[in-house]
């Protein structure tokens, strides 16, 4: 039973990853290319370091940027574009497996009864908790935005926001179970219990704003929209497919008296 769910989660995750990867390729890649072009133009316009310091510092000028997108890059742009599908596919595979195990734990304990409804509700909750909550505090950035020196602290803060989102869901569910007054009281209590820790984290955690002076606002907006859209496409495709397959399998086993080998 658990193994069936996990295999289903892995395969549907891979498929949803491919769908989201296609969306990202069409709507996101043009913005990544535009941002890299701006980054390279900025590097080209930078004055060469003074000859005196160049000698003693070993002339590691390009290394100071910590990152290459040009022809001397470790991985070229065409490979990075193929890597987009690899990355989102692997992400979908792994996230799908984790989702299936969480789903197995929730079923019969929390949330809606049918497999389809539970899959949709869980996928929507996961999107809000793991994607939307961190995004609203630390939105996605295109290449050329972000200081390589601060990557570790920014990654840690991002992970903290993911944990806050998940913890807020747990608090909301626990709160909703304690409220017996009525459905609306329960919904409002769950909403408040979710928002209090999330808003507190939004207010208390440090702000990160490393958008360079003069970076086009429209490009930043379009990139962030494409990034959020990629995740929305992934979680929608995943929730719908996982729920659909779950309901179909449940319906088939309910109709046939003997369990079929297929």
């Amino acid at each position, binding site marked *: 039973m658990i193994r069936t769910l996990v295999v289903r989660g892995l395969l549907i995750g891979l498929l949803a990853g491919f769908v989201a990867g296609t969306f990202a390729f069409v709507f996101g890649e043009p913005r990544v290319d535009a941002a890299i072009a701006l980054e390279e133009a900025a590097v080209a316009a930078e004055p060469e370091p003074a000859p005196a310091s160049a000698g003693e510092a070993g002339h590691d000028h390009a290394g100071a940027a910590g990152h290459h997108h040009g022809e001397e890059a470790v991985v070229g742009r065409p490979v990075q574009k193929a890597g987009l599908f690899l990355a989102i596919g692997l992400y979908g595979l792994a996230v799908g497996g984790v989702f299936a195990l969480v789903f197995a734990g929730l079923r*019969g304990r929390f949330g809606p009864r049918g497999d389809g409804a539970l899959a949709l509700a869980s996928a929507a909750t996961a999107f809000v908790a793991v994607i939307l909550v961190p995004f609203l505090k630390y939105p996605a950035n295109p290449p050329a935005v972000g200081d*390589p020196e601060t990557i570790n602290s920014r990654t840690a803060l*991002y992970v903290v926001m993911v944990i806050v989102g998940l913890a807020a869901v747990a608090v909301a569910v626990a709160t909703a179970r304690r409220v017996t007054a009525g459905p609306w009281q329960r919904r409002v209590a769950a909403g408040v219990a979710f928002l209090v820790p999330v808003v507190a984290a939004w207010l208390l955690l440090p702000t990160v704003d490393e958008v360079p002076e003069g970076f086009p606002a429209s490009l930043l907006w379009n990139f962030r929209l494409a990034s959020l859209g990629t995740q929305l496409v992934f979680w929608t495709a995943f929730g719908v497919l996982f729920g659909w397959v779950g309901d179909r399998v449940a319906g088939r086993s309910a109709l046939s008296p003997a369990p079929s080998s297929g």
Partner: protein
Amino acid sequence: MSDISAPSAVPLPHLRPWLLLAVPVLLLVVYLVLMDNGAVSQTGTFLHELMHDGRHLLGVPCH
């Protein structure tokens, strides 16, 4: 509450080995795809660069 039969819950002891073994492996994959910059994969910047576009468009911090 008893009019519709609720789907039977998977017993927690059945779930435990999966949570202890599969989840860490799956989360390691997520970490390697989204966040590793050579510390775990020991590939220098190769993994970062290969996953580069995916990291940007999945919305995680990337340089």
